[in-house]
């Protein structure tokens, strides 16, 4: 009986909001919304943001903040484009991963060295990275040639999504570093007493976050083919939707593993955005609805859920 209830509440957490959204937008959007083609597009649109949010999980669960995924996407898009032109698809993927590794190493290293709150540190670093993006691109946008768009097409995008999700799942649930990140987030003192290497764990959290951000950058560039440098913290605009996705995932993570919850969350948010566009709601109202949904999900989420504990 208990197991049955457990699965029922899991299904409710995964499907509850998406089903409500589908019903609502089918009523008001008709067949333009309710079509296999549209649903398939929504899933494809979830690939790039999912990769970024999977990375964010590793830092946020440690009770730290990383404000750099936005600028990581930009830098990874630039470097991967430059490398793709020279080395093809290998360069495209390697460029993104390498950019993520460099940014993650810098973030982790500075966090351990300066011991300032992560939110302040990473905002400072975002300013530096943004300037770097201007220097790399000479202040201009960078195009990825159309011949490199394959990663944004089926089945490659879905394969990358599944591979990324599987790696994130195993890293989070089946590796020492994943368990230590979860331990650190619950209690630094207990983690220390339990023999967890705090510095190594924090460093790895930032590194994993940025590598996923880099892969996200590759996907964003594959879809959009164009990236512009940013200054004045404008790259943070790219971060906030990802944070929304993370908080949504956190709200349902008591019933569903957070890595799966991230994918579910991204699909749900994309369902909402897609539906709002189809029913022709103005952009400003779309933002209000998006914010409202986030508050609604966190509010109706199970009492005492991780979301309630972390989002204060």
């Amino acid at each position, binding site marked *: 009986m208990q197991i049955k209830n457990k699965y029922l509440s899991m299904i409710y957490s995964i499907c509850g909001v998406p089903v409500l959204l589908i019903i609502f937008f089918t009523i008001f959007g008709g067949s333009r919304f309710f079509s296999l083609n549209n649903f398939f597009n929504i899933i494809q649109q979830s690939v790039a943001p999912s990769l970024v949010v999977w990375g964010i999980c590793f830092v946020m669960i440690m009770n730290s903040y990383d404000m750099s995924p936005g600028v990581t996407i930009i830098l990874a898009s630039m470097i991967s484009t430059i490398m793709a032109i020279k080395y093809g698809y290998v360069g495209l993927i390697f460029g993104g991963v390498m950019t993520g590794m460099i940014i993650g190493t810098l973030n982790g290293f500075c966090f351990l060295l300066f011991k300032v709150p992560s939110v302040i540190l990473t905002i400072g670093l975002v300013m530096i990275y943004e300037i770097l993006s201007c220097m790399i691109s000479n202040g201009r946008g960078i195009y990825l040639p159309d011949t490199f768009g394959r990663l944004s097409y089926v089945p490659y995008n879905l394969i990358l999504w599944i591979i990324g999700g599987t790696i994130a799942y*195993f890293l989070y*649930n*089946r*590796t*020492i*570093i994943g*368990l230590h990140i*979860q*331990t650190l987030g*619950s*209690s630094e003192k*207990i*983690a*220390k*007493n*339990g*023999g*967890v290497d705090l510095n190594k764990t924090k460093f790895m959290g930032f590194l994993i976050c940025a590598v996923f951000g880099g892969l996200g950058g590759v996907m964003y560039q594959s879809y959009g083919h164009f990236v512009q440098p940013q200054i004045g913290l404008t790259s943070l605009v790219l971060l906030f939707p990802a944070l929304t996705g993370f908080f949504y995932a956190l709200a349902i993570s008591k019933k569903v593993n957070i890595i799966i919850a991230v994918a579910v969350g991204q699909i749900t948010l994309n369902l909402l955005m897609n539906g709002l566009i189809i029913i022709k709601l103005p952009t400003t109202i779309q933002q209000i609805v998006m914010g409202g949904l986030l508050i609604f999900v966190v509010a109706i989420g199970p009492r005492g859920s*991780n979301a309630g504990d972390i989002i204060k």
Partner: protein
Amino acid sequence: MDESVFFQTLNISKNYGPVRALIDVSFSLRKGEVRGLVGENGSGKSTLASIISGIILKDHGTMMKDGKEYNPKHIQNAYENKIGIVTQESGLIEDLSITANLFLGREKEFASAGFLNIRKMNEDANKIIFKILKTKKMLAEDKVKNYSFEERKIIEIIKALYLNPEILILDETTDAFSRDNKKMLWEIIEKIKKKGVSVLYISHTISEVLDNTDRITIMRDGKIIDTIDSHSHTEDDLKKMMVGRELKSNYYREDYQGSFNKEKIVLKIENLSSKNAFSNVSFSLHEGEILGIGGLSGCGMSKLGKAIFGLLKIDAGTIYLPIKNKLLKNHTPVDSITQGIGYLPKDRDSEGIMLLASVKDNINLVSLDRIQRGFAFINSKDEISVAKNAIKELQIKTPNIDQFCIGLSGGNRQKVSLVKWLVRESEILILDCPTRGVDVGVKAYIYIILEKLRLQKKSIILISEELPELIGMGDRILIMKDGIIGSKVFKREEKPREEEIINYMI
């Protein structure tokens, strides 16, 4: 050095700023010995235990184990040297499984190419749990948060035992244990003792320490006062050594008349039920009465206290205040406080006081409306004077009123938690285990306060897991079992005996 001694500390000192927590402590432990360590709050017991287990570093002195110098830099060093500890605070990660907690820091044993063999970990964890508990009531795959506070402590003990320690330190971890679990723990200790494991048992439950240990070390003000043979001393001897003065052998009430006003009911509970907590609870509380509610931990009595105060949803039944002709329905703690009800929770540090706020702020917390002047301004002079009077009245040991409560000893925190309701002049007090985790000195003082309140015609619901406390202080005692209050009422004038009450609890 005595040949049977295999662990000792020599002139260990530890200072926290001007506070001398340990002063030249020399202490030794024999192989296979169960040693009690007692003392008032702040006497240095936990500091000594923490130094032995590497949680904190000593300032001076040396430690020897098996004839070799032992100098742990952190708790892992202690584990490597076969010294395990279970501390007062939670040492588990709630959101992780028992398995993950059990093997925390030792996951490499189950890793291959960076990935963990979770199935093997769970299998091994279940074997360890079964080997120690001899039951399958805990599943290693379960998350720790699915278990009660008491069960979590058992998990911590399992974790400490699975490392095959040569010394096991239990620092006030078992004071809140039920009788069954205490019995199980002492059986485990007896078993490991036979294998040559030494146990350092820190507790405030003096009778238990006397009954179950071989020798007892008494600490006071950071020093070791004496080490005595457990079987040739009484509770009174120990208490005297702990506090450094004669304590009354019986610090409970001395009257046996049950002299409350039987005509004047201040609180009437009828058929009160709360899902998964208790059902059909009915009783009346009279003016000037101490009504004891006892039972095993988890029987629902703590939840009953919460529900009356408005912290737990009530599904059926009524709470009525006859004198005020007020029915409390869907009430909140704010309503209760307004109606003159105060509540002291069992879990003091997370529910009773704000640890990161000053003593002054804690004391004034529930009485701010009384010191508010004009539109919404708090009169700081009143705030200070209320706090100073309360500190003086309850003899709270604090350097000043702005001291954060996290810096106070357990007993003084408990006094702060209690005094705010006295400042509020609450007419009805719900006290859930008011002497839990405090030393005998503070305990005796809390009983004096209860007696004073009773004589001032205040009414008290005393929820407690300690039968001597209920018998010693209560006018009437009700027993709760599995969420139901038994029909038998134990009256003070009938001088109920512990053995008699236990039959109704189990």
